[in-house]
């Protein structure tokens, strides 16, 4: 019990350190053009501080992993909160490894904010330590999930470097297809931020809206009762064929289509709408304040970096992450599935999406090695690849039900 309390504190400390580290990285990148400074010295100095903050944060998170593992009795990879926090841990670990190879501070200016977003995202899920259900009681839980997360973490660094390459190289003096797509990618990142902001704000405010659906379900006591759906966010969209039991801060504008009849389908749609709206507002606000494309806003801070080096780092991360991902998310997964369910492959949605990630990066590698897709094309693919990973981790668990779905938001 005390260990779990300790692990919570350690994770909070890690989160705080990652936030500070991100800010210092931004200062390192943007402050080099401030008056009266030697740009190189400034970047080096603040980059180093930020790097060490990240290292200390990583150590704190290591403490969290160990404490929760010992306190909970199993590796902290058994539900969405634990998994997302562990994935975040792997992203930071991959960054530290890549840093040791290339000694390029500024990768952190992109990876650390990504780490902050992922960790904040994990906080959205229920944090309690639950005992393992029978199907999860296997040492493969530790091996399969940790290796898969490590692979995905390394691929995420490939994404961060790819995104940096695009921001560095996409010409910002004219509006083109590439600038629009780059803005779209940045807007999607802001939607994820928007989701975290909304979710954590409303979780604290207790403005619940409760709906009752026109269908029945057995409760734990064994009697039938009408299905109730609880929204923490204000309702834009109501569940299909339902009535309000407890009114929230606003009346829903419309009802979900009737085929979305899953208990949580409408709530997820509502959450998604809020994320998109908040993301768009954040994006629009930034555009209004700075009066230029976000790509153009960030570009000066990455100006000094050799694009070839970014391309190389992105590719290197993907070529290291790909085998690790294959081992963890496909091979170990197959061995476990064979042991638990008697078949190594069953076309479960999660399995299929792991295969899709693998096929996508296989295509990336063939295009790069055999068709000479380097630079911009390769960078775009690293971005798309990470989007597919996010679909696998988030959408499949929360939207498509399957053997892998955990309790979700």
């Amino acid at each position, binding site marked *: 019990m005390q260990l779990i309390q300790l692990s919570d504190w350690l994770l909070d400390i890690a989160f705080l350190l990652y936030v500070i580290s991100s800010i210092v990285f931004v200062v390192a990148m943007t402050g080099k053009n401030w008056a009266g400074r030697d740009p190189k010295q400034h970047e080096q100095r603040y980059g180093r501080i930020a790097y060490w903050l990240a290292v200390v944060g990583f150590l704190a998170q290591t403490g969290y992993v160990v404490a929760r593992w010992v306190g909970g009795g199993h590796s902290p990879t058994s539900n969405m909160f634990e998994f997302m926090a562990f994935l975040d841990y792997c992203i930071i670990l991959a960054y530290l490894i890549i840093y040791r190879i290339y000694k390029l501070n500024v990768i952190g200016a992109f990876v650390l904010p990504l780490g902050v977003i992922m960790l904040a995202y994990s906080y959205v899920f229920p944090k309690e330590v639950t005992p393992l259900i029978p199907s999860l009681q296997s040492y493969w839980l530790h091996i399969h999930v940790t290796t898969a997360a490590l692979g995905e973490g390394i691929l995420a660094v490939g994404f961060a470097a790819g995104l940096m390459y695009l921001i560095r190289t996409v010409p910002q003096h004219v509006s083109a297809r590439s600038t629009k797509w780059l803005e779209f990618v940045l807007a999607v990142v802001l939607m994820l931020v928007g989701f975290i902001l909304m979710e954590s704000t409303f979780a604290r405010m207790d403005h619940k809206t409760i709906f009752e659906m026109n269908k029945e379900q057995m409760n*734990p006591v064994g009697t039938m009762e009408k299905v109730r759906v609880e929204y923490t966010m204000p309702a834009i969209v109501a569940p299909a064929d339902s009535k309000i039991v407890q009114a929230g801060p606003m009346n829903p504008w419309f009802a979900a289509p009737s085929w979305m009849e899953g208990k949580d389908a409408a709530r997820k749609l509502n959450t998604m709408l809020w994320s998109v709206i908040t993301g768009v507002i954040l994006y629009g606000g930034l555009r209004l304040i700075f009066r230029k494309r976000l790509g153009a806003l960030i570009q000066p801070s990455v100006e000094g970096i050799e694009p070839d080096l970014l391309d190389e780092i992105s590719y290197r991360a993907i*070529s290291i992450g790909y085998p690790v991902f294959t081992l963890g998310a496909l091979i170990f997964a197959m*061995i476990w599935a064979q042991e*638990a369910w*008697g078949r190594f492959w069953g076309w*479960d949605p999660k399995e*299929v999406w792991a295969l899709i990630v693998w096929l996508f990066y296989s*295509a990336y590698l*063939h295009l790069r090695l055999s068709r000479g897709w380097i630079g911009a094309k390769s960078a775009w693919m690293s971005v798309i690849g990470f989007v597919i990973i996010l679909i696998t981790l988030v959408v499949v668990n929360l939207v498509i039900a*399957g053997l892998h779905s955990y309790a979700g938001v």
Partner: protein
Amino acid sequence: MDQRKCECGHTNPVGTLLCESCGKPLNVEVYEQTAFPDMRYEGMARRSQTYTKKWIDRIWNYFSSVKIAIGIIIVILVASAVGTIFPQQQYIPVPVPTEADVARFYTDTYGVLGTVYYGLGFHNLYSSWWFVTLLVLLGTSLVICSLDRVIPLYKALSKPRLNQHKSFLKGQKLFAEGELAPDVDQAELLDSSALALKKKGYRIFRAERAIMAEKGRFSRWGPYVNHIGLILFLIGVLMRNIPGFYMDEFVWVREGQTVAIPDTPYYIKSENYHTEYWSEEEMPAKLELNGGVIPKSFQTDAILYVNKNAEVPGKKPDLIEVQKGPIIVNHPMMEGDLAIYQSGVQEMQLGALNFVLVDVKQGNKELGPIKIDLYNPAAEQEIAAGIKVRVLDYFPDFVMGKDGKPATQTNLPKNPMVALEIVDESTNQNEKLVYLQGSVLTQKSDGRFGLVFKKPDLIDISGLNVRIDKAVPLIYFGAFIFMIGVVMGFFWQHRRVWVQTQEGTVLLAAHTNKNWFGLRREVDGLVEQLKLPVTVEEKTKA
């Protein structure tokens, strides 16, 4: 002059781009990087680039194209994603016994989109002929792509490229050239270069005026090794279609029951089934479960028998115990190739009805207990001296048929109806009683016999999945080879550095298949250490 004959005197096979001996580009006078052949296959003749006439060449060339392979990968990727939009038939959460139920499920649940999805056959997408065809095409492409490249590459790499033509060196991405001071001893310069590179872990090949330093050549085999792994994997998957290689059966076993496992000489008995739940003290943290519970284990204590008479048709089974033990989720019972998995349960099902027979006329005097085994009711049982109970009729899952006659919906005792006859041989009295839905109907209003209900026997029924998959070792082996291949190919690089002297100039060139950043660092280090009078230029390939 024969195009294949290089000016160095070597005769190359048709289709060669770089002379096998001296490395000079053939066919064209190229000195520019843009026109310099790609180094991936060392400028060797590849079958697909050489022969195009016959139909077999066309097929070969089609499948040897990486572009086609990527196309197939993308199509499989998109098709796989489409298969996850709605659940596949096997994952439909409600029972759908007939094809019509399946169709109705998609229409009712997902509307028009669901109807279209079902209509296109996407509910069984991964076993559809076209999806399987795509996988076969990918396998074909894997084999042909690999063969088309690996043979020429093997020939090229087994003969180190030493003493290359200047145009070969100049064609490399990293190239440097510089005038040597007249007093420099060229042989000594090459010696010290060799020594410096050797210290970096390179293997040195030396000629009179040239050295070639090489390391990590084996990483060039990585792609082919991993493709072999994939081919083995796919062969393993296909092998499951051979009769006897793959079996997938599901049996329900009641506690105390022994059932035959179809298509095998084995029988399985369930001695006991139990579900364990996590107690609150065991939980690492307090949870709000609202009266719910979290299961800890699902376990069937089973005995596996083999039938000695399995070979003899019609002969009575002679069962011999081969294994006894628990079957738990994640811990199947293994017997040779056979694996038995705990994969379902129906708990607290009616197993037997218990009554006490009473004599109403004697103030409900107890005559004796009656047990009606709902799976195998005894035709007659003696309750007390001279008093017998006969089962006249039994409907495990009672319904009143349309013709007004009683019938059973299934053969599971979900709603049992039993008609009993009680015979007292001493008085030659007999009475009929019917049990249905928790009450007893008597024949006469003032009958002598009555039934008092006792707690029925409740049993658990284990769902056991029985599988044989003889291809699994090959599939794992293929996966293992694949991993070796990708690790070889991605965690190591093939690096080569050439240093040559020609009439007062020194030429330096380097090539790697990946991580130019690392190679550049090594070459810069070499130039600095030996104080070579050159500046390295790194060309970016268009």
